[in-house]
């Protein structure tokens, strides 16, 4: 475990630093069979998230964005790589002192302590809440797990959180069950549960994609407000580029386990460089019939990254691939200025 003591806090400091993260899933042909091949779900991914930043992971289904999110909260153990995160050195005291911890290797008590700082919001609020628990039980559960407060303090804190996420008056929600709530209200309960331990980092996996438009906006604005108020950082996972543009400060576009492009959201969306990002952005429908889009065609469909050959993951579909792309490894992310990184030999 690598620890570095830190004293100061600034707005631009790095909260999470992911280095060469990999996760391979073995494909077995039978229960006792040896794995012969692997799905390279996350393959050598590196990025940083600043304090108070909303960092978006964008991509189509199967690109590895959810796996990355699960690795960052250690719901999955990485195959290799490091995830450094700033956590309080002494969580029991109110000391401001912080240290970087490589959470990829945490175990036992240290892992539990780390989990106080990191929470997750899932896509489906109909499945992520226990139907047999009341709203109070759901939101207070993290307090119980970490042994914080007595019953009265917990009730007070839960009520405070429910008001914060817009479930007012909180008394009318405390003892209701999830089935009595609408989708938007349920997702607010999930957000309250995620917020109750004052985390510094939240992984939000498609938190609004199950919600209706008129409800979705309220939940998105709530998450933005919470960032403003508490300086929380989010890893925001979504397939919807319009949502990403609304929510995220910076985005990374993933394709078959690799980040192919990374940069400030507006810069990437208005000026995409990677051929995959270009095709992806050109395919997003615009809610205005007066706008004519010029879609960029790419051939083929998304496959699975099963033992991918050692070359650019996008090679088979790429309209600008050359001999060099066929001969070389997957290209590294290269800085093109203004914090805009692209993994492509031809750009």
């Amino acid at each position, binding site marked *: 475990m690598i620890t570095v003591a830190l004293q100061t806090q600034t707005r631009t400091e790095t909260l999470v630093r992911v280095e060469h993260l990999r996760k391979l899933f073995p494909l077995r042909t039978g229960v006792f069979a040896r794995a012969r091949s692997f799905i390279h779900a996350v393959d050598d991914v590196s990025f940083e998230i600043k304090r108070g930043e909303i960092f978006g992971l964008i991509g*189509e*289904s199967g690109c590895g964005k959810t796996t990355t999110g699960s690795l960052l909260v250690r719901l999955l153990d990485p195959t290799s790589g490091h995830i450094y995160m700033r956590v309080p050195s002494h969580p029991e005291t109110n000391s401001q002192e912080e240290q970087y911890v490589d959470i990829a290797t945490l175990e036992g008590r240290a892992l539990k302590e780390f989990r106080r700082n990191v929470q997750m919001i899932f896509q489906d609020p109909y499945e992520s809440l226990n139907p047999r628990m009341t709203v109070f039980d759901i939101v207070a559960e993290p307090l119980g797990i970490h042994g914080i407060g007595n019953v009265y303090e917990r009730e007070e804190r839960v009520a405070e959180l429910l008001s914060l996420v817009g479930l007012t008056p909180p008394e009318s929600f405390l003892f209701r069950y999830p089935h009595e709530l*609408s989708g*938007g*209200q349920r997702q607010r309960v999930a957000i309250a549960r995620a917020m109750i331990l004052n985390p510094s980092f939240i992984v939000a996996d498609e938190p609004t994609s199950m919600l*209706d*438009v*008129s*409800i*979705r*906006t*309220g939940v*998105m*604005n709530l998450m933005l407000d919470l960032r403003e108020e508490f300086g929380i950082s989010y890893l925001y996972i979504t*397939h919807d*580029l*319009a*949502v990403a*543009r*609304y929510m995220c400060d910076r985005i990374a576009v993933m394709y078959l386990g690799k980040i192919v492009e990374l940069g400030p959201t*507006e810069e990437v*969306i208005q000026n995409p460089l990677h051929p995959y990002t270009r*095709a*992806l*952005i*050109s*395919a*997003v*429908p*615009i*809610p*205005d*019939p*007066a*706008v004519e*889009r010029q*879609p960029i065609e*790419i051939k083929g*469909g*998304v496959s699975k990254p099963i033992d991918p050959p050692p070359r650019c993951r996008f090679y088979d579909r790429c309209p600008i691939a050359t001999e060099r792309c066929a001969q070389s490894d997957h290209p590294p992310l290269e800085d093109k200025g203004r914090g805009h990184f692209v993994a492509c030999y031809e750009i």
Partner: protein
Amino acid sequence: MTKRYPVLHVENLTMHYLTRKGEVKAVENVSFSLDKGEALGLVGESGCGKTSVALTLLRLLPENARFLGGHVYFFRDSTDEAHARRAVGKPVKILLDGQEHQGRLLEATRSHLVLDASANGRREQLRLNRQDVARLGVDLTALSDEEMRPIRWKGISMIFQAAMNSLNPVYKVGDQIIEALQTHLPISVPEARERVAELFQLVGLDRQLMDRYPHEYSGGMKQRAVIAMALACEPDMIIADEPTTALDVIVQDKILREMRQIQKKLNMSMIYISHDIAVIAEVADKVGVMYGGGLVEFGPSDAIFKNPIHPYTKALMSAFPSIKGEKVKLAALPGEPPDLIKPPSGCRFHPRCPFATEICEREVPEFREHKPSQYAACWNPLSKGDR
């Protein structure tokens, strides 16, 4: 007068579901029309009744549904013999020289259509020359189940939500379409195979894929196969319920563009049902916005997106982020969609409407034309200045 070529007139459609909790007022007084070659986008949030409208007009309702009123006129050329025979004794609409006649069809001979057009106590019988009559519309709600069957697939076919999961996993995809073809058309197996090959080509699938099983298809390929199946009997109209919702954006874009091309090529009418107004903006010529079981606004797509009349339409649009244009803070709509067992009185949108006045709570607004061919049900319509 410009020549109108209607395919569908829906008038005051009302349908409720009986449930243990009470009566769900799922479709209330919905009226719209669709011409040949036009694409209509029905947009609204979950539970607003958009799928129920489709099921009602195709008469595919579950047992607990109660059809409570309204007419669905489905038009075809008056020279279509089977269509005219089916219409005898039924309420019909007849389009002749740009004029619309309504009544009960008494007789359809080779040369004439005899129409009982009695109305308001006045008895009137019309004898119309069949060659002059352009379109004959029969009220689908008056047909028996037996008479309705040929309308489905050949008249109107439907692509159901998550239809790609509706392919039978133990039959080859091609065989499933052949079966559908043989059920509806007198066609031999080799002919049907040839037709399926044509259809596969039309929707961008390799013909070799005919002899593969659904699990060998990707999501996009399955959706294409389902579209091919809907096109199989050359329907006048297709209803596509969330045809691309489960697909990734690049595949969605390709399929929507292909559907649009096929629609133009075959001069077919389409109803797209979607919650995504960006998708509707791309494919639809006309837009119908639904809220709480009712159609709140209907009209040409350009007009509705530029100058919506109903506050809900506007709210829906300003809640939608885009990757184009200036980045603005999205306005969240307060409250929740209505419970259709106990819907709000008056206008169903009034509890969430920023412009609601006292009358909105009391009386249901009439669905009427506010601007040329732009209809809305609202007491306080938005003027141009509000946007």
